[in-house]
Structures are given as C-alpha cells and as structure tokens.
C-alpha cells in the first residue's frame, strides 16, 4: 500500500447560521497518499471548499472537530503560529479565482517572494529574486524578468493562475491543494493549466488534492477519486474502477450527466433537484435519497456508512444495490412531451 501523507479522521466543519451550527463537512474521513492525485468531485455547495479550507486551517469562523493528521501533527489542533509553519511550506494551495486571489498592490516578485521569505528568513534578497525568476519560468510564464515587476492587473487570468501556482509550489510542498483551479478560466487556458499541474506533479513528488466538478478533469488527472455529497464522502475508488464500475447512485448520476464521446448516448441524465442548503440538509438516513425518489425507501440504510466493497473501493449506503435510472421509454416520453 502507498504511504499515507495526510489522514483526515472524523472531520466536522460547521458554520454558525443564526445561533446554530450546521456541518458543511460532516464526520468525514479520508486519506491522501504520497505522490498521488486525489480528486474530490461533487456539485457546487457539497462542501469541497469547506474541506480544503479545513485542511489549510483557513476557516476564521467555523467550528472544527476531528483530526487532520499530517506527519504525526494534528493540523486541526495547531496553534496559529504552528499552523503558519506548515501552510505555504509543507502544504500549498491554489484557489479558484486567480483574478481576486492576488494582492492588487503588490508586484509579482514581492508576492511570490513573500512565500519564500516567510519560511526561509536567511535567504538573501538576490537569492530570492533568482528563485522567483526560476519559479516563473517553471510555471511557463514568458518574459519572466519583466513579469516579475508587473502588477496582477497587467496579467491575464491564465497568467495569474500560473503565478498562484508558482506561489504554491515555491517551498516545494509535499501536499498541494488545488480548489477548482480552472473553473474561472476559459477552456483553452484550462487545459494549459492542467497540463502544467500534471507536469509539476511528476517533478515535485507531491501529493495533490484536486477539487473539481469536472469529470473530464478527473479522468485526465486523478489516481484516486473521492465523490462528495452534502458534506460526506459517498464513494472512493481508484480512477479506473470509478469510471468502469461506479456504484453509488450519485456517482452514476454524475457520470451519466456528462456527454461521452466514446459511446453513443441517447440522452443525458439530469440529476433532479439541487444540493440542499446547510440548514435544510437531511442529517438522517441517505442524504441523496431525496434526489432519487423513484428508488424505494427500503433500499436505503437508516444510518448509511462508508463500506469497503472491494479493496480500495468504498461506497456509502446500500441503495446502490437497488439503483437504476428510470427506464428509457419513460424518459423519452418525458423529453417528447
């Protein structure tokens, strides 16, 4: 088995809404191994960012329970100064929106240099400059000497995301968290950024947590996949298994809702309804049941748990055994009417 890099145990991240705490990440356990790309997929609002921010200790107003074990340390229990030694150094993060994630009043050199400075006080100014230049070249920014002295607003979205990546990898982290790194970019730039992350992955020997709702990205990049729904993991598998033998109804619905060029598809499946908001989230029973109402009540467990069905392949709830999409004639009628 692969070496564990990060182990999340029973993590619950709750936000206070009108005097009550509501869990956006609910009793979640997950392992990230060294040198693997673990994709976390799920629709908008299912708690992916809340999870990523918890790993980085970036929540300012959330209540966090459970353990996040990294190299015998528990990130969830760290003091701010301990935390500041880990983030930016051992764990780097790339955010969703490169347009707003850079300080508008700082030159690129200073912004990347700050990451270096914070974790290496002895580094001389010239050494730091060289390293910044080096990093900019590494992330494929043309005319790096020039860009160093530019401000964020002078760069395109794709370039800014490259700068963010340079910043995240500046101290050679062991773990890189990328929270939807391409969602805000247009399609051609998306694939360039993904290629870059792929290239860096081979060079860096880092574990990568790649958060996305794009299954195409998952297929291209991931080694393992965790499917997340309403604050919980509903299925974990390696990427081949997940695409070949998806089990959980949510995973199957997601896969079915993506156009597939290889196979002929009569129609795309649309998942009914939306991810419920935190206050309306069902805390009992199978959380996905409301969105597959045609599946009989008795198919679901009372207290669904994540169980291993094959080595390395875990699924929550028993409903997957009884799940099938509503039959095609019915759906065609639906389309015609």
């Amino acid at each position, binding site marked *: 088995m692969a070496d564990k890099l990060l182990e999340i145990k029973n993590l619950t991240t709750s936000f206070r809404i009108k005097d009550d705490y509501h869990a956006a990440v609910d009793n979640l356990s997950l392992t990230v191994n060294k040198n693997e790309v673990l994709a976390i997929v799920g629709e908008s609002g299912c708690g992916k960012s809340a999870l990523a921010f918890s790993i980085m200790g970036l929540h300012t107003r959330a209540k966090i329970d459970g353990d996040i074990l990294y190299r015998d340390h528990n990130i969830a229990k760290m003091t701010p100064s301990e935390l500041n030694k880990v983030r*930016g150094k051992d764990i780097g993060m790339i955010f969703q929106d490169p347009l707003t994630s850079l300080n508008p009043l700082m030159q690129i050199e200073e912004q990347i240099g700050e990451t270096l400075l914070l974790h290496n006080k002895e580094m001389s100014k010239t050494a730091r400059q060289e390293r910044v230049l080096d990093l900019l070249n590494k992330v494929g920014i043309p005319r790096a000497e020039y860009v160093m002295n530019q401000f964020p607003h002078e760069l395109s979205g794709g370039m800014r995301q490259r700068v963010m990546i340079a910043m995240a990898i500046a101290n050679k982290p062991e773990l890189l968290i990328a929270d939807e790194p391409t969602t805000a970019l247009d399609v051609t730039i998306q694939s360039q950024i993904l290629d870059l992350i792929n290239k860096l992955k081979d060079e860096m020997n880092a574990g990568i947590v790649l958060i996305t709702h794009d299954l195409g990205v998952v297929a291209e990049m991931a080694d393992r996949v965790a499917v997340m729904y309403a604050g919980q993991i509903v299925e974990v598998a390696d990427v081949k298994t997940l695409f070949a033998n998806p089990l959980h109804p949510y995973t199957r619905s997601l896969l079915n809702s993506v156009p597939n060029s290889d196979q002929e598809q009569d129609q795309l499946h649309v998942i009914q309804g939306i991810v419920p908001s935190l206050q309306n989230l069902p805390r009992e029973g199978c959380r996905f049941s409301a969105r597959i109402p045609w599946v009989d009540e008795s198919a679901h467990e009372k207290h669904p748990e994540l169980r291993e069905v094959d080595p390395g392949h875990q699924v929550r709830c028993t409903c997957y055994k009884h799940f099938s999409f509503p039959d095609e004639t019915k759906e065609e009628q639906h389309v015609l009417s």
Partner: protein
Amino acid sequence: MWKFSVRRTLIMIPQLIVLSILIFVLGQLMPGDALSGQVGPDVDPARLDEIREQMGWNDPWHEQYARWMGGVLQGDLGESFRFKMPVTELIGQRIVNSFWLSVATLILTYIIAIPLGITSGRFNDTWRDQLITGYSYVGFATPLFIFALVMLWLFGFTLGWFPTSGSVTPGLEPGTFEYVMSKLYHLLLPAISMALITTYSTIQYLRNEIVDTKQKDFIITARAKGASETRVYNRHILRNSLLPIAAFLGFEITGLIGGSIFIENIFGYPGMGQLLVESISLRDYTVLTAVTLLFGIASILGALLSDIILSIVDPRIRIK
C-alpha cells in the same frame, strides 16, 4: 505617472474657467453694489450713474469679466471698497492664517481617525468598534458651530487654557520663536474643535475600507502562504485600506473650507472664512468674489492632489 499628472493638471484649466465665470456672474447678480447704502440720500442719482459709468459697472458682463480676469491673472484682485486697500493685501496674512489652521486641523483629523478607524475595522462588531462608531454618530449629529461655542466657552473663557480670539498675541516680533509658538497656541483650540467633529467621516471611511479588505480573496492567499495575522494586517489589509484614504484628502479639503467659515468666526480667528462673512455683510463684492474664487481654487487643487497621490500609490491608476 508624469503623463497622468500632466493630463490631470490640464483638465483643471476648463474647470477653473467655468468656476471663475460662475463666481463672477453670481457676484453680478447679487442685489445692490458697493455704492448702495454708502451714499447719503441727498446725492444726485445722476452723479451715481456717472460714477457707475466711470467704474465700468454698466458695461456688458463679459467685458467686465474680461477686465476682472485680466487683473486676476496678473495677481490683482481689485480694490476693497470698504477697507480702501487692494484685496491682495487684505487677503495676504489671512490666507496664511487659514492655511495653517487647515493644516493643523488635517493633521489632528488623521491623528484621531487613523488609530480609531484601524481599531474599529480590525475589531469590527466588538465593543471597541461600537464605542468608536458611537463617537462617530455623535460627531455626525453635532452641529459644528454649537460644539465650537461650547469648546470656546469651556476651554477659552471658563478654564482659560486657550486664547479666545485672534491669531497671535499682539506685540510679538514676527519670526521669533515666541511669535511662532503664540500662533500655534492660537490655532490649537479651533483646530481641535473642528477635527473632533469632522473626523467621523474619515474614521468610518477607513473602518469600512478595512472591513471590506478583510474579506478579499487575496487575504486568504496571504494566510495560505503562512503569513501571521499581524503580517496579514500590516502588509495586506492596512496597505490596501489606507490607500483610498489618500483619495479622501480632496474631499477633506472641501470640508475644511466649509468648517473654517464657522470656526474662524466663532473663535475670532482672522482668516479667509472670517473675511468671507465680513465681506458679505459689508457688501464688499470685490473681496467676496476674490475669497470665493480662492476657496473654489483650493477645492479644485484638493481634488488634483488626491488624484496625484492616488496615482502614486495605486498601480492600477499609475499605468493608465
């Protein structure tokens, strides 16, 4: 930056022209002239017309304007009818007095506003913030002239800590240390009174700027780098919040002009604000138009100053 500054300065020229025309026309529209109320009822009206004709007061307004403007451009603001002396001479010492009063008020405003605004913004929605916001509301609600009167009564007359009128103790030799100190002493109470009341806008502006910046994405980026909370504050939040304060300076100067009219009259401080009120009550139109013009120019210069400061500190403007 130079390009921007030059272009920005050039925009001022049409502004100044429009301003001067407006002020001149408004002056013309006011009822009466320097002769009304000045001459006895026994004076022959025909004689008055003769004087008016002589002075050119019956010419079309644009001719009078051109004459006036020509003088202004050469530094001649005309003659005061009441004081029988050139307006420039009349303004001379007063403009210096007003200038220092404004500088002192501005400095005090920032001395009060920056620490309070920072505390209020950093600890927003705590008791500290509420306390400071409470003070801001009081400042907002209290009329400046009432507050100034209370200050004058309390610290000037009752406690006797500060002089109650004038800008300097008579009989001191200009240029000496005593003279400078006396000047400072005289402008302190008016400046404090004005700063205490008008600083609320700067406090609230800074507070909102900080609260706003705190929630920006790049602050999360800074934390993700491993920056300590102190560093995040000083390097990222403060730097980005203080900048718009610079832009606020122009607005501040306009506010000062309005405030100084009250303050100088209440504290008997011989400055431009006092001269303005005096010239209105004496119908001294040449003085009035001159003072109004100078106030207008000060406002326009204030806005220019803001823009240039902003262009120095904000790279997004600097480039364009």
